[in-house]
């Protein structure tokens, strides 16, 4: 059997998805038997020039993690799309923007001022800001510009499959790789998941008759470790989150925050979670509902913790503001779907 050419890349990411690959452990040795790694900046020494020199479609499979944040991310996304037969959005950032997608709430201008000028340890008397193009005595240095919004990989180039999770559970990654090698790839596009929701993998007891009068925060109470978090008034994203992790956080006695993305058939994870939470309310009247909703601290950071960049809210906003985005023209040329 011929070995396949495998690539892994990080765009705007934390590196956890690369660690999830390292976490394959001894499976890495098995993988090396059937695959040549031809690009993986975290762990190998191939450079961008090596990728540019590859024939189109030279890479059989690319695991692309990280969101699209800069012009360079856009460029590499296009490059790897061109060089790869199969491109996988690997992990929550590439698939739905993940936690850094919350930066779309404040926008880059606010973030710029905060970090470069305002933080208490910053010493910047001349108000210097990093420049996309900067002249030095020896020549010029450039930095890639920031896109107007953080985007998912699929919002920039066509994607063949997605593997959810922040990061994807290494067992699921191995299952997905084996399925690929065996030629058993599903048509629905999502790899490394189990049917239904995190609740279906959760060992906690759900009595179904408890009604929530107010929500509490995890540090304020010592919750019953055997009972459903939501029924104890602790927000848990389990009902609106795709199964696949094995309910790892819940088993460690903390509520789910939704990193595996929406279940099958759900477009907007935040709306689905809101729906599940409202269903648990005790109140009937508008005033009662308003009172209970008032106990939910930080609704957007709770409902859209991982999926804001891929939400309906974001799509509506992106349509309205695409003209301001320095990366938008690059995206449009590749059949941008937004």
């Amino acid at each position, binding site marked *: 059997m011929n070995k396949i050419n495998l690539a892994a890349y990080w765009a705007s990411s934390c590196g956890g998805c690369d660690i999830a690959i390292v976490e394959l452990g001894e499976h890495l040795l098995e993988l090396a038997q059937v695959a040549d790694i031809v690009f993986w900046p975290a762990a190998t020494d191939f450079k961008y020039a090596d990728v540019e020199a590859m024939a189109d479609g030279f890479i059989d499979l690319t695991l692309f993690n990280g969101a699209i944040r800069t012009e360079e991310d856009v460029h590499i996304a296009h490059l790897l799309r061109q060089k790869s037969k199969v491109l996988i959005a690997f992990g929550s950032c590439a698939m739905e923007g993940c936690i850094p997608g919350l930066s779309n709430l404040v926008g880059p201008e606010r973030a710029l001022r905060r970090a470069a000028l305002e933080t208490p340890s910053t010493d910047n008397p001349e108000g210097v800001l990093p420049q996309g193009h900067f002249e030095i005595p020896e020549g010029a240095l450039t930095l890639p510009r920031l896109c107007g919004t953080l985007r998912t990989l699929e919002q920039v180039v066509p994607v063949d499959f997605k593997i959810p999770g922040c990061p994807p559970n290494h067992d699921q990654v191995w299952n997905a790789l084996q399925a690929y090698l065996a030629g058993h790839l599903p048509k629905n596009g999502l790899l490394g998941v189990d049917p239904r929701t995190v609740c279906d993998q959760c060992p906690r007891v759900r009595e179904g008759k408890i009604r929530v009068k107010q929500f509490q925060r995890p540090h304020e109470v010592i919750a019953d470790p055997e009972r459903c978090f939501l029924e104890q008034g602790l927000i848990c994203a389990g009902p609106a989150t795709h199964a696949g992790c094995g309910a790892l956080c819940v088993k460690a006695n903390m509520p789910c925050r939704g990193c595996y993305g929406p279940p099958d058939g759900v477009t907007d994870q935040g709306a689905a979670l809101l729906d599940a939470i409202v269903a648990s309310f005790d109140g009937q009247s508008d005033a009662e509902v308003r009172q209970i909703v008032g106990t939910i601290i*930080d609704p957007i950071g709770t409902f859209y913790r991982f999926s804001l960049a891929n939400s309906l809210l974001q799509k509506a906003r992106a349509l309205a503001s695409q003209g301001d985005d320095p990366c938008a023209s690059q995206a449009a040329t590749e059949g941008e779907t937004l």
Partner: protein
Amino acid sequence: MKRITIDPITRLEGHGKITLFLDDQGDVVNAYFQVPEFRGFESFCEGRPVEEMPRITQRICGVCPMAHHMASAKAGDAVYKVEPPPAAKKIREMAYTAFVCGDHATHFYVLSGPDFFVGPDADPAQRNILGLIHKVGLQIGRRVLQHLAESHEVISLLGGRFVHPVMALPGGVAKGVSPEMQARFIEIGEHFVEFGLFSLQLWKEAVLGDNAFHEMIFSPAYYQRTHNIALVDAQNRLNFYDGRVRVVDAEGREVVRYAPSEYREHIAERVEPWTYVKFPYLKHFGWRGLVDGMESGVYRSTPLGRLNASEGMATPRAQEAYEEFYAYMGGKPVHATLATHWARLVEMLYCAERMLELARDPEITDPNIRTIPTETPHEGIGVVEAPRGLLTHHYITDERGILQKVNLIVGTTNNHAAICMAIKSAAQALIGGGREITQGLLDRVEMAFRAFDPCFACATHALPGEMNLDIEVFDAKGERVAYLSRTADQAS
């Protein structure tokens, strides 16, 4: 002027690029290290509840999520003025030292090991963990993978998963240690100590025992005379979880010893227009630019910097390894950047011993692991020694515990100036003089930054990016009638 670009730099966490400028003789006139990446955590953390921060800020870095998780939980304790029960603190420190033990091994074997065991002149396609396993043999390879798996197991048992664990929150930890878990932690701790000793032995045989590497370690190409900082206990011994920050100058004298909450009096950060990461420096000395020496404010917060800034290790075998290190290197302080790898292995042994010590502590199974906050939240600073340097989280909240201001100084950022200098120094010493520029030479330049084990995913948590803003005004026919631009990068 000729330009050589190494893009991307590899076998590290995050993005970086090196640009070398060569004159007509082929000598390096200047070298720039740039970080072309942005994350933006400080601003969008504002508005989030403080108890969620250990689960949010860890997404700054999936390689050292536990460092952000712990610093954040400790900042949360301080915001609520709450003291976690003794067992909770011990569980946190045990998990934390187990994490550092795995993280240091990841760097030594997966990221930098290929330079030593496969070699800078080897085919770049072989210079990685698989090439390393091929070289050292499957038996050692399996041992490394087992060590990483066991470090991951400790954190998974307590925090649900290795990458982005969920164990700590203001006032304590979410899950206690059962007697069965304790037995397994003791077993793993014993493996860690053996593995720590084994790794030091391997270093001595394969690296110190190799003439070429021995020469490189002592070479002026990899030498930066900087100040050093470390988190230390009451006896000035290194501690990863708690203590005071000790600053020692380039000649080894103590400059100051301060409580982490006083960081603003001692550390400030410069902004430079050609990179997205800031440059922290010691205010005591001031900012003199990218230069080393006694006058400069540049410091190191790396394994080497930590050993230099502390007066020993709190566990017996690590103390022996520490003494052997300084005896071999010629006394304190050591400024040989490549010796950072050795210092990292001394720390790995310390963390192994400390983890085992805590796993054996009878109190570790005490079920009292949470203190419920009762005070009104306001301001808190939490620090830990992250594997790559001192990590500071500083939060200010409203009376509900919703974040209003966030400031983060992360491990790698501390070392940004020293990394830039190390790259320039290696490039100027190794390239030029009519020598052919080979892949091997360029890898030797990369070895200068790799010794720091930098994480630019962390360092780019902030978002000091010059934003592009174009406004176009179209009339009803689609004709552009006005165009306003404040584009930073006109030339690209």
